């Protein structure tokens, strides 16, 4: 893939840093977050961060893999540079959700799921996907 830094994306990346409290340039791409991530994300957490480091905001924002993060915090706990990939990913998801672009459809959610799931699954799901 050819990577061309995009100037206007720099502003959106610093906004993301402000919202999440993370400093993207702190990441030195060791890959430890990706190694421990149970979510089989592709692009993986460290790759999403590399996109941002390269100024490729849209590649990170539109990556489908951000929706597979389950906030287990393994990445954040293990990062030797005190970066929280989980927070950055949540910041990316929030951009969609605040644009009223939900990722689960309540209309089609199975009644069986709602009936048997513990409340925190449903409430967390609402927070992360709607």
């Amino acid at each position: 893939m050819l990577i061309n830094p995009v100037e206007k994306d720099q502003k959106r990346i610093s906004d993301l840093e402000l919202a999440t409290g993370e400093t993207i340039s702190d990441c030195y791409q060791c890959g430890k977050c990706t190694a421990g991530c149970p979510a089989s994300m592709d692009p993986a957490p460290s790759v999403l961060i590399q996109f941002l480091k390269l100024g490729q905001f849209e590649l990170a924002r539109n990556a489908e893999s951000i929706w597979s993060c389950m906030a287990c915090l393994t990445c954040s706990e293990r990062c030797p540079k005190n970066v929280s990939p989980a927070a950055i990913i949540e910041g990316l998801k929030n951009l969609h959700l605040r644009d009223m672009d939900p990722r689960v459809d309540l209309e089609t959610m199975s009644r069986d799921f709602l009936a048997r799931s513990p409340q925190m699954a449903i409430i967390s799901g609402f927070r992360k996907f709607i």
Partner: protein
Amino acid sequence: MSDKPARIPYYPGCTMKTKALGFERSAMDCAEVIGFEMDELKDWNCCGASYPLTKDNLMGLTAPTNILIEAERRCQKEEVDPNLLTLCVFCYNTLKRTEFALGQDKKKLETINAFLDRKYEGSVRVVHYLEYLRDVIGFDNLAKMVKTDMSKFKVAPYYGCLLLKPQKEIGLDDPEDPVILHNFLDALGCKVIDFPAQVDCCGSYLVMREPEKVSKLSYDILADANEYGAETLVTACPLCQSNLDQSQGDKVQFADLDGMPILYFTQLLAIAFGLDTKTHKLEEHHIDPLPLLKAHSGADSESK
């Protein structure tokens, strides 16, 4: 924390009153035997379940702060130590992280106080039931209260994520190599099965969007526990319980694995105390734990 067990303010959360009734009831029955009372807050709201991870998270902190205020007022009024007991791991994580965030960031605290139009002074310490058993009661003392021979139980202690992480905010135990559940099971006299997947994620709320992934993750955890010789697995989290238990209904993913009952640690504690488990909802688990419980403890299956 005071060293005398007594009445301690308790925040249940939504799941404890619905899908995890057996968790709450077994915990309360055990508390009575141990000698403390879980004193439910009178006026409580949902904590929001998942702690918001980004820094612009003020709205997400209002619900848990409201709970801390309720607890603070109660403790001040009754002149007891400002502790708030929790059982549900999601609630524990959310409330504990809120306690930490507000302790660190006075400006955040002031903003939330202004928004809620109530004043939180920042005195409450959120405590998990397991932590209370370890630090106030003591696992040694717990061991002396055990009535049932538990030596036949081969139990895998499963921690998952939110009981331990992030360590610098929760501080309960080492997130990579925890021992608190191991030591709890030791005190009960169970055979503790140490297994590598004990801190792996079950898939959490992803069950709403990608249940197949949750099945696969649950399978990996249970296959690992099984390989190390476990017959049952204990957890403190209703979502882990649900994911690990209900995923076993996926007969394709679980084709080569016999059903493994998933218990709340307090349900096992009740068995160890020889309590009547009738109200502990064991019969509602997807994988029926009663045959195992009966075989190993002689406990009767009245709860059927």
